[in-house]
């Protein structure tokens, strides 16, 4: 979510809310005989408000389960989640008088710190990373499809190498339309192998296959870099440059395609990594939020008792 001008009202509202809460807290804290306490009237107000904001922030998950419900725009819910969630943190601190209290309240405070911290981190990531994503990953795809696309890339690379090798080995059946066109333009007849025109080189063919099995397949087959040399852009560039030197110029376009496939694979790996960063914080934020709401509700009940 981009935090832009559309957040201004929420931001100003949160600042105003915080200012009012602080303005009430300072005299209350200074002049209250017992100091600031969660059980005092103002302490309970802070606690209740904070908990209501937390609950509302938690309802975002429910709202996402029912996107077609007409209960406000998703963006509005997201903004409310962000700003009310932020505001709830100082309110809860004021509720507790900036003390962590006993075992349950201490656990709650730690949970809240992690939920708040992960939320802030998430908001920052979601603000900055999408732009970064777009700039660095022109070949990105749907995250869930990455594995599927990776397999297709491996197949494409294999097919490309087979075509090239067939050309090198003189099998016209294995050559592509383009290769045939090249051969025809060189004056060869259909009943004559194009091999002569393409400068048949069995050694080069073997070398290309070896490169596919040794370098390209392990790289495209693994979800990450897999410790392969092609995972490093500079190394990859150097390797493909060397291939262009070894192979005849007519195969350079195939080599370019192979390099492009490897580039795409590297981008998919990078996309996976960025996606894990962009969404990984939710593995902390959401489970801890549920625990926080659960224990918070229990704390409210027991605090009213004692």
């Amino acid at each position: 979510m981009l935090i832009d001008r559309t957040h201004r009202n929420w931001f100003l509202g949160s600042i105003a809310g915080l200012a009012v809460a602080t303005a009430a807290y300072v005299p209350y804290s200074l002049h209250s005989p017992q100091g600031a306490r969660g059980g005092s009237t103002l302490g309970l107000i802070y606690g209740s408000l904070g908990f209501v904001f937390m609950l509302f922030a938690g309802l975002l998950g429910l709202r996402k389960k029912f996107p077609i419900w007409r209960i406000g725009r998703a963006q509005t819910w997201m903004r409310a989640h962000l700003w009310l969630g932020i505001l709830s943190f100082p309110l809860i601190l004021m509720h507790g008088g900036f003390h962590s209290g006993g075992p349950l309240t201490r656990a709650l405070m730690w949970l809240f710190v992690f939920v708040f911290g992960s939320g802030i981190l998430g908001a920052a990531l979601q603000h900055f990373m999408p732009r970064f994503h777009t700039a660095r990953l022109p070949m990105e795809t749907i995250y869930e499809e990455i594995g599927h696309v990776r397999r297709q890339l491996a197949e494409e690379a294999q097919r490309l190498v087979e075509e090239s090798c067939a050309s090198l080995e003189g099998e016209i059946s294995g050559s592509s339309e383009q290769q045939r066109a090249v051969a025809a333009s060189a004056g060869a007849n259909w009943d004559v192998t194009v091999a002569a025109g393409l400068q048949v080189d069995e050694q080069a063919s073997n070398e290309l296959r070896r490169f596919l099995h040794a370098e390209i397949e392990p790289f495209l087959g693994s979800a990450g870099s897999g410790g392969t040399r092609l995972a490093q852009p500079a190394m990859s560039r150097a390797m493909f440059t060397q291939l262009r030197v070894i192979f005849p110029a007519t195969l350079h376009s195939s080599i370019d395609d192979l390099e492009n496939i490897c580039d795409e694979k590297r981008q998919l790996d990078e996309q996976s990594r960025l996606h894990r960063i962009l969404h990984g914080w939710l593995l902390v934020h959401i489970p801890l939020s549920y625990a926080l709401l659960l224990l918070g509700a229990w704390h409210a009940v027991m605090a009213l008792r004692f």
Partner: protein
Amino acid sequence: MLRRTRTTKKLARRIDLQYFTRPHPLRRWRFWLSVAVPALALGWLFTQRVQGGQRAYSSGPLSRSHAVFTQQCNLCHVSRARTFAKDVSDQACLACHDAPLHQANQTFTPPCSSCHVEHKGVARLSATSDASCTQCHARLQTRNGISHYATSIDRFESTHPEFSALTDHRIDPGQVRLNHYLHLQPNLLGPDNRRVQMTCDDCHRSAEAHDSWPYAGPTTVSMPAHDTAVEKSVRTSAFMARIKFANQCGGCHTLQFDRRFGDLQAPHDRPEAVHAFVTKQFEQYIAAHPGAVHEAEPPNRQLPERIRIHAPANTSSEWVQYRVEDAEWLLWTKTCKQCHVLIERGGMLPEVVKSNIVERWLPHAQFDHYAHRMMTCVACHANAPASHNTADVLLPGIKVCQQCHRDSSTKDTAEGRCFECHQYHDWTQAKRTKGGFTIPELRGTAELHPAQVSPYP
């Protein structure tokens, strides 16, 4: 030349359109963690409940004095009949503590827990916040509308009034003539005709001090260090020992009454006792020296202003009478009068005005001299060395205190909160409390009997 192209059609073709029906690992993890973490939280809560009763719900550690009851929440948190709440009542506190009223004239009595805030850790419960006091004293109201005290105090360093002893030109009501200036001069004639330089602590010492008084008389007097309940509630070393003639004065101010008895001194007592002592001494003397009746009495140089000259005595009783009159003339007009105010009563023994030495200058506060032992006396009692009159009040003013004691929010100052000097409860009205718990009950290893914990019928 690159032959691969990324057209929308090509990209669309390679997408598996059913991808959203298969949960992705990240989502799977999120779901299971969302189940597991709250479950773990509940498990932790349950474990806490099993291990420590209701301690998990404590809002903080108990003070040191109550920490032993940590397992026994019900000692203080008492259930009310037909209610869910288990709040702390004053009755729960009063089961162990007495809490005398502050002032009969106060308009309301705060609950114990409003000033003595528990669950704040090892802090002293008696270290109450200033707000506990200023909630009344910032705008003091009384039941009858009359207040004998400052009515607007909210901060020690700004609105605390001057000590009443220093206001309205009040004087020291003491009736023993004492010139501090003179006593602190060099080369005073001390015991055994030695020249001495006195210092403050020759006479003013902690009541707990065990070393001897340098200017004590032949016999010293042991004095109780404290009398009142308030004094008893603080340590003995807080107060200065009372000034007693035998301890602080007798070494220099001797009470000889006749040269015949050498260094024998009259008792420092009521005139009647002095008279009886002196008479007895002369009677014993004349009994032992009957010839002295007819001996001419040389003029007494100690009595230059003595106008009346006795005729020679005819009998021993007459001789005793004359000698007693002379001795008492010396005592009443010179020796005793040097310090005491005597009222003549026309031929009868004089009346010594009660010395009335002020023992507590701050009747509504406690000052601990021991806590200030690192300072010189004149650091606070600056005008003492120059004081010539008994009536001078040598108590330092509030400004002296405020040089060090300030708002506790500033770290480099001494404690400035009300409780440092004042006590809320009037301990002179304290009553004995009677315990009602066994050790297992207090430690939480035995159940409390309902009658012990519930003050509510």
